[in-house]
Structures are given as C-alpha cells and as structure tokens.
C-alpha cells in the first residue's frame, strides 16, 4: 500500500512553547483516517504543516511523495484542505469563489466538476448567491467544495462538523464517504468521537503535541476493554483477584471493572459471591471511543 501522507519527526516550536514534539505517522492511500485530541493538542498545527500554512521547526512532511517545502507545488496540488474556521471572501458569489479557487490551482473551465460538487453538497440553488448571504452551514459547505475543485487525491478536513446542524452533517458525511469509496484519502479531525468511531478505519490521538495512540479504530476499542461492569457492593471488600480489573472507583463502594468479554461477567459475579460481597447495584456499559479517548488522555498527561 502506498503512502498518502508521510509525517516524519515533525516538531513545531513557537518561542518557548512547543506545539509539536517530533510527531511521526503515515496515512495510507485510500484510508479514512482520524486525528483526535483535546483542544490545543496540536491537531491543527499538524494539519497546517501538511498544508504548508505552518513551517515545521524540524522534520519533514510528504504528500503523495512530494515534500511540502521543497516540492510544494506538487504537494499542494495533491491536497485539499477544509480549514477549521469559516472563512469566505465577501466580494464573490459561490460560483465565482469556486471558479477562482480552480484558477489558483491552474484549472480553467472547471464548471462541469463545479456543478457536480455543488449538487453533491446540496449547494446548487445557492450557486449565484453572494457568500455574505449564506448561513454558517452553507459557508462551511462552500469551504468543502473549495477543497475539492482540483480533485485532490488527499483531503484533509479540520473539524468540518463543528457547529453544524444534523442535516448538513449527514449530507457532508455521505459526500465524504463517497469520495473515500472512489479512492480519495481522507484525514479528519473532529471533537465528535462517535463520528470518528463510525467513519475512521484508523485513528491517531495527539495530546500536548505528542502522538499518544495510533491504531486501527477496531483495535483501539478492543484494547481498551470491551465494556465496564459498574458495581456497588457491600458486606465485604472487593476480592483481590478482581483488583487488577478495576478501572476506576469514584466512590468507595462503587467500582468500575474492566470486562474483556461478556462471558467473563459470570465468573466475576461468582468470585464476588464467594468473597461474601452483596451486590447492591449493577450496570454493564459498552466501551466507545469516548472511554478510550478519556483513558488515553489521562494516561498521557504529563
């Protein structure tokens, strides 16, 4: 499998502040890749480095084999970026905006493709409206359209669904998924973990400028417990064979235990009974990416 984005020991320092501490990761061609992390983790800095908006203090980035500094023309031509902030040029209509963007990428007479994108994003009826007249969600769609005018093989979306209504989110994901099926590599940052869980095949997590996880989404979910058994017990303390399974105990008698497989629950209950514990309350929770995220972020805090 060839590599769409190759990030090699990228560091970024702003004076005494270090935004990225030597991050290395590779995104393969055709992947749907998620980049997660809390605010200030360095996600946008990393994306901006890929896009050439930020210059790395050390390390290299290649897009489709092209170095983003030395061979910036080829690298940028291969990349479509949807910025996080909603930005627009108030002087132009939607169609003018898309024609101009095409021109910047050296493409003239791009109207057939522009129409296709407008249709795909439900923007066709707004094509001749001025950018100023559009709602925030519509402006966001135009930003997505702008990232696609030059048919880039690699598309980076920086929190594309922040502050966006349900319908647009649906349209957007449908469209992006179709692009991915057609072979485009997609890199996504998001705060909505359920989105990452649903779409991304592989996930990288950043915290305080460091890569703290990089795994297939499935593996990531599995490695961080299949589920949790939350218990309130009385009568006797937690028997020692179960102590290694404790994830957290927010209150003294309320304990969350890691459950690897559901058929492990029964022996756990048996152990409790034998030790003389009474079960006052019991709840079985499924793991989701949010649990994984929270626990990784907790572990990686420096």
């Amino acid at each position, binding site marked *: 499998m060839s590599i769409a984005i190759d990030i090699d020991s990228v560091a970024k320092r702003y004076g005494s502040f270090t935004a990225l501490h030597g991050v290395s990761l590779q995104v393969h061609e055709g992947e749907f890749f998620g980049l997660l992390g809390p605010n200030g983790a360095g996600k946008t800095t990393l994306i901006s480095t890929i896009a*050439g908006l930020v210059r790395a203090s050390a390390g290299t980035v290649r897009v489709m084999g092209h170095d983003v500094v030395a061979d910036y023309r*080829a690298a*940028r031509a291969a990349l479509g970026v949807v910025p996080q902030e909603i930005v*627009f*040029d108030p*002087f132009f209509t939607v169609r003018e905006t898309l024609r101009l*963007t095409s*021109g*910047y990428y050296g493409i003239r007479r791009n109207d057939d493709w522009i129409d296709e994108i407008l249709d795909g994003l439900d923007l066709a009826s707004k094509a001749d409206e001025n950018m100023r007249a559009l709602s925030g969600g519509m402006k966001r769609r135009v930003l997505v359209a*702008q990232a696609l005018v030059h048919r880039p093989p690699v598309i980076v979306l920086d929190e594309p669904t922040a502050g966006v209504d349900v319908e647009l989110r649906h349209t957007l994901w449908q469209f992006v998924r179709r692009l991915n099926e057609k072979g485009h590599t997609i890199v996504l940052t998001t705060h909505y973990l359920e989105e990452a869980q649903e779409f991304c095949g592989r996930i990288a997590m950043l915290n305080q400028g460091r890569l703290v996880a990089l795994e297939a989404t499935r593996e990531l979910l599995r490695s961080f417990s299949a589920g949790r058994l939350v218990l309130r017990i009385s009568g006797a303390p937690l028997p020692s064979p179960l102590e290694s399974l404790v994830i957290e105990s927010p209150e003294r008698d309320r304990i969350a235990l890691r459950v690897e497989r559901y058929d492990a629950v029964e022996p756990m209950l048996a152990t409790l009974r034998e030790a003389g514990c009474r079960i006052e309350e019991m709840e079985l929770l499924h793991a989701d990416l949010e649990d994984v995220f929270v626990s990784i972020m907790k572990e990686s805090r420096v």
Partner: protein
Amino acid sequence: MSGFRTLLYKELLRFSKVGFQTVAAPILSALLYLLIFGHVLEDRVEVFEGVGYTSFLVPGLVMMSLLQNSFANTSSSLVQSKVTGNIVFVLLPPMSSLEIYLAYVLAAMVRGLAVAAGVLLVTTWFIDLRVAEPGWILGFALLGSAILATMGLVAGIWADKFDQMAAFQNFIIMPLTFLAGVFYSVKSLPGFWQDLSHLNPFFYMVDGFRRGFFGVSDVDPWLSLVVVGGSFGLVAAFALALLSRGYKLRY
C-alpha cells in the same frame, strides 16, 4: 502561471466591484484639491516660468492619487484577507511567491493608473496641460505605482490589524507623499528642508513625473530615474523575501 492570472483577475475584480470607493472617490478628492488650491494660489505662486500654479499642481495631484491608490489596493486587500482569514485561499494553492507578488502588485498598479488617468482626464477639462516629454510621464507613473503597490504589500503583510495599517499609511506614506513637492517646488524651500527633501525618494517620482509635462524639473530626470528605479529594486526584493520566508503569513 495560471494561478497568477487568476489571482490578478480576482484582485482586479475586487476593487472594480467597489469602483465608487476605489476609483471615483479619489478622482473627486483630487479634483477638490485642484479647485481649492488652484483658486487660492493661482495668482500668487509661479513655480516654473510661464506655468500657472494650477497647471503646476495637476501633475503633482495625479502622482499623489497614483501613489496613494496603488498603496491602498495591496495593503487593504491583504489586511482584509488576513483579518477575515480568507488569505488561506491564496496560501493553500500551489502558487509561488513571485506569482503572488506580481498578481497583487499589478492589480494595484492598474487601480493607481486608472485613478491617475481619471484625474488627468477630468482636469484637462479645466486646464490646458502640455505634454513635453511623455516618456517620463509613463516611466515614472509605472515605477511610482509599482513602488507604492509593493510598499502596500509589505505593509499588508506586516500589519495584523487595521489600526497598524492606518499608522503605516498616515505616519509614513502620507508625509513622504506630501513632502515630495506635490503642492510646491522643493526649490522654494529653505536650504535645510531642500536637502532633506532630496533624501525622500518620493520627491524624485513627483519631480520626474512633472518633468514629462513641462520639460523642466528640480533635478535631472535621469538621476530621478536611477533613484526611483533603485528604490523599486530594493522594495521589490524585500517584499519577495518576506513572501518567500512566509513572514507573518506562514507561521
């Protein structure tokens, strides 16, 4: 270079869509200057022999409009794009620094020259203006607008907000322009101020430009050409270096 072509087109479209503000308004202000100063000073001041003050004033005003509008176009376009964030549309595509430089500067030159031509056209309704050496007119108009467009680009890259831009314009560009002999001949100044004026590159733009109309000037137009041409080379190299380093654009 098709990225350049599109960016040039976009910059032209940007100011022509607000043509009242960017072209018509500065023509009107120049005309007001001419009417008022001309009326007050016509019979009192004679700078060159046989040239009335109003006629003397016209090339100065044309040049002033040219310089101010060339500067205003690049600077306001860049600061607006930076403040609103849509500068990324220019930074993301595969365009070189030279393409970006040329597109911004040429568009600003077009605006400056359009305003200058407008001022000239309107004033010739009122005033008989001769054209002695048109080559100088064209040469200094092109170089002057290129210099100011480039300075506007530099100011636009440097300024983070409109306040800083206003400072740059009012504390650097305006004094340099007004003290360049737009309204008077530098020869009429006392010795010290005359020497000081000769350190101002804007003086050479105005003086050389005026030479084209009247065939007379305070200094040799070839000297002016060297000074103005050299200044352009310096500011252009500086602006290109800023763009290539990504100063305040690519962090």
